[in-house]
Every structure is written in C-alpha cells, then in structure tokens.
C-alpha cells in the first residue's frame, strides 16, 4: 500500500517536495492556507539575479504537482504523534493518517510598520518590497515620475530591536534588482540603496550589483536609514549616516522601498506549538543538525524544507525540498522494512 505523506505549505518548497515524493511513489497530501498555491512566489513579479518571470517559474513548479492531492484554504487544526505515524485533523474536516510529515511553512515578511521610524502605513511614499513587486505585477506603478527613490536594506533583519538579529539573505539582491527595475521605468530618477553590507553571495549577484552601479547609476550609501519624515510638499525626507564618510546625510525622496526581511510564518508556528517543536533564538525551527541533517527535526518522521528553518533563497529552498524528499524516502524505507 502507498504510504501517506502530509506536506504542510504550498509554496515552492512544498510544491517541489510534493512533486518529488509523488515521483518516488508516495501518496502526497499537500495543504495550503491561502486560496492559491505558490506562497510568496505567487506574489512576486520577477526574480533575481536574471529577472526571470516569477509566474513562469511558479507554473513550472505547478506543472510537476499535477496528481498530488492539494487542499487549498486549509490549515492543520490538530496534529498528534502516534506510534509510527501522525494524525492530522484539517480545517476542512478531513483527518489524515500520515506516515511522515513535511513542514514547508516558509516565512512571513517582517511587518514593516513595526519599524515606526520609517513611517510605513503613515507616509504615502513608503512601501515594502512586496508592495513594489505587486505594483510591477499589476502594472500599477505611480504614473507621476518620481525624482528620487530610495531602498532601505535590512528592514527587520540584522536588528535585535526588531526581534531579528539574522540576515534575511535575499533582500540585498532583491533591492538591487528592484532598484534596476525602477530605474528602467523612471530613467531620470535618482535611485539610492541604503545598505549596511552588501551580501551579493550568489552566482551572478555581483554582476547584478555592478550592472546597477555602472549601467543604472544607482548610488549605494552605506548606512541604515534612521528616520523618515514628510516635507511640506508631501515628499519624504530621509536621514541616514553615510558611514563611509562618517557624516550624517539627508535626502528628499518620492518613494522609499523597505526591504522587509523574513520572519518565521505564523502558520508554521502554530503547527510547531502543537508538537512542541523547538526553535532557535531567531524564531525559526531548529533542525536535528545544522550541517548534516537540516531537513530532519528532532521528531522521527517529521521533516522540514525551505525557509521554516531560516531565511533562504529560492534555489536553496528547492534544493532542500528535493533533499527532504530523499530523506523522507530513506526514513520510510528504514522504518517500514524493519518488520
């Protein structure tokens, strides 16, 4: 008989893992709390470093999961550990007996309004990275040409006061990508990136940075924005320190994009509470081993994939999803061949 695997979360990690588990011959049940599959990927317009369409990428992932039992708008209501399996009661009333569970609950974007000094939700021109992606996707960029646009890196990341000392890994590349995109739309605007360190670690990321500097003339200012205020004509006055010249700096902008970082998702946390899963100081789930078995939790048969164990890029997430499928396959084979 086919073994049941419950995958919680229909983002890239959940989709890629489900596709692979299905291919390995398991009966996969994928549940997603939103109306549609895809997680944050579905809300994005283009992806760094090459600017490929998020929609196409998502469609490629979705093509692979045809035949998997998907329940959207569904959450786990109760999750119990049985002797050799897990018993899950879903919000749609279905009860599932799963031989293994994969948690792919991903991340929530940091709530930018928590950084009160940036005035998100208070000043018109202050938006988040997600808002900008939506504007690109829906083609709803402000028609009035802005003269100056700023990007604030590390909003809610590397910030103990915001509750997240860790780096969110994707914001630097996203900010540089978005800065280039915005400059393409408004070539006459001055575009500034306020960064602390530029973490352009991936393949082609540095090229993106160089392109942003040389081709788009984007100005990188090393220093975190300290505060934002509105000017008499409704523009944004931004203060920061240019730490490279050790001088305070101010500039008036028309749009300020906050690169909201990654926080553990609320829905993931609620699953974690039911099983008393441990988290690390950053709030993300702790793996059995951070080097050797990131996909394993401390509970046998309960696995992780993607950003529920910390900020990850899309390729990282997909790799983890594939390796989680292999780990689960190995677990099931070992567990059920003992008899």
């Amino acid at each position: 008989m086919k073994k049941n695997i419950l995958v919680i979360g229909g983002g890239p990690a959940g989709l890629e893992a489900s596709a692979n588990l299905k291919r390995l011959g398991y009966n996969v049940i994928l549940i997603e709390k939103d109306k549609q599959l895809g997680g944050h990927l579905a809300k994005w317009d283009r992806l760094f470093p090459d600017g490929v369409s998020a929609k196409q990428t998502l469609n490629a992932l979705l093509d692979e999961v045809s035949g998997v039992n998907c329940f959207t708008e569904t959450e786990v209501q109760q999750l119990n550990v049985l002797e050799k399996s897990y018993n899950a009661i879903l919000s749609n009333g279905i009860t599932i007996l799963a031989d293994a569970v994969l948690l792919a609950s991903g991340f929530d974007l940091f709530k930018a309004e928590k950084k009160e000094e940036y005035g998100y939700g208070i000043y018109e021109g202050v938006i988040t990275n997600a808002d900008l992606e939506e504007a690109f996707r829906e083609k709803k960029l402000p028609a009035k040409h802005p003269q100056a646009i700023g990007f604030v890196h590390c909003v809610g990341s590397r910030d103990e006061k915001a509750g997240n000392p860790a780096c969110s890994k994707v914001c630097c590349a996203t900010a540089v990508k978005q800065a280039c995109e915005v400059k393409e739309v408004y070539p006459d605007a001055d575009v500034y990136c306020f960064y602390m360190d530029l973490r352009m670690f991936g393949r082609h990321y540095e090229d993106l940075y160089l392109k942003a500097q040389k081709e788009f003339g984007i100005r990188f200012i090393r220093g975190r924005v300290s505060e934002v205020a509105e000017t008499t004509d409704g523009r944004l006055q931004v203060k920061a320190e240019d730490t490279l010249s050790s001088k305070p700096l101010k500039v008036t902008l028309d749009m300020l994009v906050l690169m909201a970082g990654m926080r553990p998702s609320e829905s993931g946390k609620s699953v974690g509470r039911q099983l008393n899963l441990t988290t690390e100081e950053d709030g993300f789930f702790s793996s059995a081993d951070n080097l050797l078995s990131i996909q394993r939790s401390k509970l046998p048969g309960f696995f992780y994939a993607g950003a529920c164990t910390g900020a990850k890029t899309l390729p990282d997430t997909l790799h983890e999803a594939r390796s989680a499928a292999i780990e689960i396959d190995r677990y099931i084979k070992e567990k059920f061949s003992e008899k």
Partner: protein
Amino acid sequence: MIDFGFTVSPSSRINLDKCDKKSFSALAALEPDVLKCMACGSCSASCTAAHFEPTSVRRAILSLQNGQVEQALDLLKSCMLCGKCTMVCPRGINTRHLIISIQKIYGK
C-alpha cells in the same frame, strides 16, 4: 549682532538634494568607471602619497557623490599619479585618468 561667546555651528550634514549632480554626470559621462567603485579602499591602502598626506580616490569619489567638492580636491591634490591605485583596483577603474578628469572638471 551680539557675541555670546558661542554661536550656531555650520551643519556637517550631507544634503544630497543640494549637491551638484550635473558635474558628477559630466564626470560619469567622461569616466563611466567612476560608478563602479565599491569602496574597498585598495587605492588608498596602496597609495604612495597617502603615506604622507590624506590622499584617497575612494573618498574623493564619495565626496563628489555627496557634493563635497573641496574635500574631494583636497584628497587628490597630493597625488603623484604613480598609478599604483590603478594597478590594484579590483574593479579595473582607471583611477589615474579619473583623478585628472576630476581635477579638470571640478578644479579652479
């Protein structure tokens, strides 16, 4: 006017709204590589003149971006054009000619 023994001191704050972007665009048109600086500091670290006087291409570029022209020229006036900075620049910026162009565009 009364002398109180103290007075309002001038602000050291950089105001990007007021800095001369035209000259910098002219410089960037002539020396597009000026935009490539990633502030690593290799130029100043290897600089022959910096051993004796504050000299730094990196800081000069930054000062120009921040509209502090005097400071930028001050940081380059002791340069002897020896070319070490050009040799060590990881981004391949022709710093030597950049220095001359800065002095020509902003000088006097």
